């Protein structure tokens, strides 16, 4: 039998990103028709600013979910990282750039701890990160003494500054988040490391027997995810201008929502990080659009819930058709 490459349109249809993209477009069209203010460069720039923190957390979450894991501790780790970098800088313990580096390192260390527990003792990621969530949350409040850190040096809020792009103000932070998505799309799609992550999520046994050092790989994934949460912490700090010990408490589920809306399978091994970006944008567009329409917030919660289910339903049904 000859080796035939699948024709392009078919491959496109079976790509898991089509469903989420369609949902995003539909939402944008709907809100453009129903509100005056939705369709503008400024508003889109705003939406991106609003989702970039959860979106960045969701990058790390994507990595972990691709390995068939899950991370409930990412929001808490981000909050801790934010406190570390702001407090060290404001207290004058370290110069701002080193303080940022220390915050990133702290996040990476918690990621590493998750990874070690998942691999060395083979605990389920759900329970490891659930425990870590409590631990890091407590450490954040103990270390910060529950005080919001203010009056940050400029270096910490630099990414909150804007530059003009085609008549619209865009923050450097948005750009960093987008670049991070592209970087991880590259790493997952074009490098051996990415291939191994997918293989690991498919079947740890097969991956191990194929000569992949699965423990080391898993640890690398959790540590890199931790580092990405550190970047999310920096984005959050630069966006809000403060170090906030209360940050991120619902971001674990929000980031998982983004990943799943983006078409990544919670069973691991299937998904695209660019889908996660789309998923995060879907949530952001809905929150922004509903707000612009003046929908009361409890109904926003209701609609968000329905839409999460609806979006994955549409995605699922469209995939079934192409099977």
């Amino acid at each position, binding site marked *: 039998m000859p080796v035939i490459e699948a024709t392009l349109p078919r491959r496109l249809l079976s790509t898991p990103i089509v469903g989420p993209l369609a949902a995003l477009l539909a939402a944008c069209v709907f809100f453009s028709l129903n509100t*005056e203010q939705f369709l*503008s460069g400024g508003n889109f720039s705003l939406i991106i600013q609003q989702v970039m923190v959860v979106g960045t957390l969701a990058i790390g979450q994507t990595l972990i979910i691709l390995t068939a894991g899950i991370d409930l501790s990412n929001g808490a780790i981000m909050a801790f990282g934010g406190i570390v970098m702001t407090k060290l800088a404001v207290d004058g313990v370290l110069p701002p750039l080193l303080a940022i580096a220390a915050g990133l390192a702290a996040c990476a260390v918690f990621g590493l701890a998750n990874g070690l527990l998942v691999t060395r003792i083979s605990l389920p990621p759900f329970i490891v990160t659930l425990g870590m969530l409590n631990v890091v949350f407590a450490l954040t409040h103990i270390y910060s003494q529950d005080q919001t850190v203010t009056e940050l040096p400029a270096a910490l809020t630099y990414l909150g500054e804007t530059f003009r792009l085609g008549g619209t103000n865009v923050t450097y932070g948005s750009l960093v988040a987008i670049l991070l998505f592209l970087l991880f799309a590259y790493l997952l799609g074009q490098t051996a490391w990415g291939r191994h992550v997918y293989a690991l999520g498919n079947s740890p046994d097969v991956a191990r027997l194929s000569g992949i050092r699965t423990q080391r790989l898993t640890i690398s994934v959790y540590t890199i995810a931790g580092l990405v949460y550190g970047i999310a912490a920096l984005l959050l700090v630069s966006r809000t201008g403060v170090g906030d010990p209360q940050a991120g408490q619902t971001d674990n589920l929000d980031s998982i929502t983004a990943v799943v809306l983006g078409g990544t399978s919670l069973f691991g091994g299937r998904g695209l990080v660019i889908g996660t970006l789309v998923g995060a944008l879907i949530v952001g567009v809905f929150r922004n659009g509903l707000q612009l329409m003046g929908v009361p917030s409890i109904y926003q919660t209701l609609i968000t819930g329905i839409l999460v289910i609806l979006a994955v339903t549409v995605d699922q049904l469209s995939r079934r058709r192409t099977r």
Partner: protein
Amino acid sequence: GGNGQDTSTETAAAKVGLITKTETNPFFVKMKEGAQKAAQAEGMELMSAAGKFDGDNASQITAIENMVAAGVKGILITPSDTKAIVPAIKKARDAGVLVIALDTPTDPQDATDALFATDNLKAGELIGQYAKAAMAGKPAKIATLDLAPGVTVGQLRHDGFLKGFGISEGDPSIVCSQDTQGDQSKGQTAMENCLQKAPDINVVYTINEPAALGAHTALKAKGREKDVLVVSVDGGCTGVKAVQSGQIAATSQQYPLKMAESGVKAVSAFAKGGTKSSGYTDTGVTLITDKDATGVEAEDTAFGLANCWG
């Protein structure tokens, strides 16, 4: 942020935004109702938003941005994080939006144009003074059922209570401190464990009335509901009724409806004539109790029920 310029036409009603800490606490629900009514009276359109939990700063920032983008004239906000919200408020004000803090001041207070609020420290202080007087020199064993780590209101009320009672943090008379998230069943669990630890507790400070009712249930199970003094803050109708029936000895009543009404009116005035209100308007706090303790100014539950919310 702050790029969403005002595109609304003259015919459309002017918009006012209300951002509360959470969307489900009856206190904020009442506040929203008051704002809704006032907005209708003023011919304005109300937009509302809230954080997902007490202390959720990020959602409040997002809400401010979206409201500015929607072209509101003014924003009323009960800041979840008094410091962390300041930069976002500044951006909104830079975009020409009147920002008024309700219930809780920002830190610094002049980060908003105006503040319509209750003094939470004073609310705590009132019940602290009341408890001190009611104990009449008896040695106190105090349990504090607090809110959650790092939430400003909780901290202020707690500190106020201690101040009113005339003790400071770490005083040996405080035998048990527990977070309850202001939740009734968590309040109950916390009280049960406190009683287990120190069965002779005789004063209970609670962050709000649901926690107080939870504590009451726990006390009742131990047959202690008669001889333990429970004090609280909020002044919701359920709470005042509990004061009336003696489940709670006293509560500090606040007036969310008044805050919201005054806020909407101020924004309306700004939208029509451009006058920005400023400064601090105390919407008041009143101690409600039917068991007068000498030397502490208080109103009875009849007054409380007439003025309660929720």
